[in-house]
């Protein structure tokens, strides 16, 4: 192989991956608004985390206008330090090509029933495909129902104990398939194609569980358990402001546990990493490249507004 072989081969294999007019529009729009990309796939848990980070960034760095950050691995070691200096912005007009198609796609996805994987795609002028998708998840407001749903699953760790006064406010479990997907419906509205998929119960792979626990005074505990393919504790676990620090702690059954020591009163954060007993294989929907992938470990992010790290550790320490 030489570089020409590889480049021509990769370009051929990836010919359906193109920079669309919608991408150009998104860049123009974000530049116009100050230059932050709106992520397409934000679960509620990450919206919460991002909101927290935004508040932190605004409070801590408004005075200096420089965002210093450090990247921490699962051992609690700093693997990189960097800084971001906000840049001045300018006004750029935003064309509206493809906006109608995108709106149709969003409407179609929104109107599909819950509990399905839904994708709406449309061709862009360069010959590629753009679209909107919604993941497959089930929602719970009862702790008993959630426990029942996870009773046969040993890959996602639920808290062994919940502090007095707290109750489940909301939970969401996301799935993928370990084998295949059933096409429930494929329909066309103009040039937008809607595809709805289901997964047989025996093929379901739970890959994320989000829990929101609250007490009567709205004190909050947020727990996000996600399965991951990585297998290296040297990998970056989290980016944090440079004036924060981390402490490695011990939680039984977990390979790594790191606690964030933050400046200011922003609650407590604990990150856990657990190796799975065996890899959990999964595949993506049929419209995506047919790779078989595997999860090898579980990562648990726990954030609480009014509890200390020791209490969070206890929550994940079996009797």
């Amino acid at each position, binding site marked *: 192989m030489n*570089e020409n072989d590889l480049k021509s081969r990769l370009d051929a294999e990836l010919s359906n991956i193109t*920079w669309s007019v919608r991408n150009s529009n998104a860049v123009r729009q974000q530049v116009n608004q100050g230059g932050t990309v709106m992520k*397409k796939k934000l679960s509620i848990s990450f919206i919460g985390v991002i909101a927290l980070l935004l508040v932190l960034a605004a409070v801590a760095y408004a005075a200096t206008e420089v965002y210093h950050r450090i990247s921490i691995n699962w051992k609690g070691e700093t693997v990189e330090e960097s800084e971001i200096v906000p*840049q001045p912005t300018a006004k750029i007009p935003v064309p509206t090509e493809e906006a109608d198609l995108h709106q149709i796609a969003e409407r179609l996805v929104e109107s599909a029933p819950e509990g399905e994987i839904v994708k709406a795609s449309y061709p862009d002028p360069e010959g590629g495909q753009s679209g909107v998708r919604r993941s497959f998840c089930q929602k719970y407001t009862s702790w008993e129902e959630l426990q029942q749903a996870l009773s046969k699953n040993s890959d996602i760790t639920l808290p062994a104990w919940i502090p007095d006064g707290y109750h489940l406010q909301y939970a969401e479990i996301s799935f993928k398939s370990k084998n295949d997907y059933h096409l429930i419906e494929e329909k066309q509205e103009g040039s937008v194609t809607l595809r709805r998929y289901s997964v047989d119960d025996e093929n379901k792979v739970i890959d994320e569980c989000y829990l929101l626990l609250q007490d009567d005074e709205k004190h909050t505990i947020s727990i996000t358990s996600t399965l991951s393919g990585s297998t290296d504790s040297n990998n970056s676990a*989290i980016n944090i402001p440079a004036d924060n620090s981390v402490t490695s702690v011990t939680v039984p059954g977990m390979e790594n546990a790191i606690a964030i020591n933050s400046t200011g009163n922003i609650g407590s954060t604990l990150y856990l990493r657990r190796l799975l007993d065996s890899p959990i294989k999964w595949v993506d929907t049929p419209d995506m490249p047919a*790779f078989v992938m*595997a999860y*090898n470990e579980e990562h648990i992010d726990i954030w609480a507004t009014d509890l200390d790290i020791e209490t969070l550790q206890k929550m994940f320490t079996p009797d």
Partner: protein
Amino acid sequence: MTDTEHQEELEYLMNHYGDEIMRFCTLQLKDTFQAEDAAQDTFIKAWKALDTFRNESSKKTWLIRIAVNTCRDYQRTGWFRHMDRRITPENLPEKAQEVHFPDGEVSGAISSLPAKLRMVILLRYYEGFTVQETAETAGVSVATAKRQIRKANQLLRKKLEGWYYDE
């Protein structure tokens, strides 16, 4: 540079390098939706930094360096951990019998490389960077870049046996 010149330059960069940045981000992040976000972020960062571009490197090299850093940031986020993927060796595509492969084999093999090796092999062979440029962009020494390229070549040779040969 005036606002109009900024806008014209941004349009030029997106028109000329959009596809390549999208594909680079897709191979690096192994997720088309994440890649779309990262590619958009790359052009926004480039737009912000246009005044600092001094023609010491080509525009493409400069953009790729921004894309590399952007992909790194995405790989460190919690969401990416959720989306992180690894192809297990036993699930790689069947070895082809001749120098003609089904769609996705080479990209699949490259996607299965560890992130650091994937980065250097893409910079060296897909983007056509020199070893020196690859090292600078990946943030490693030339010796480390050479070692990583050699290791990536060894792994790719196993996965793409039958048509792979050394330069």
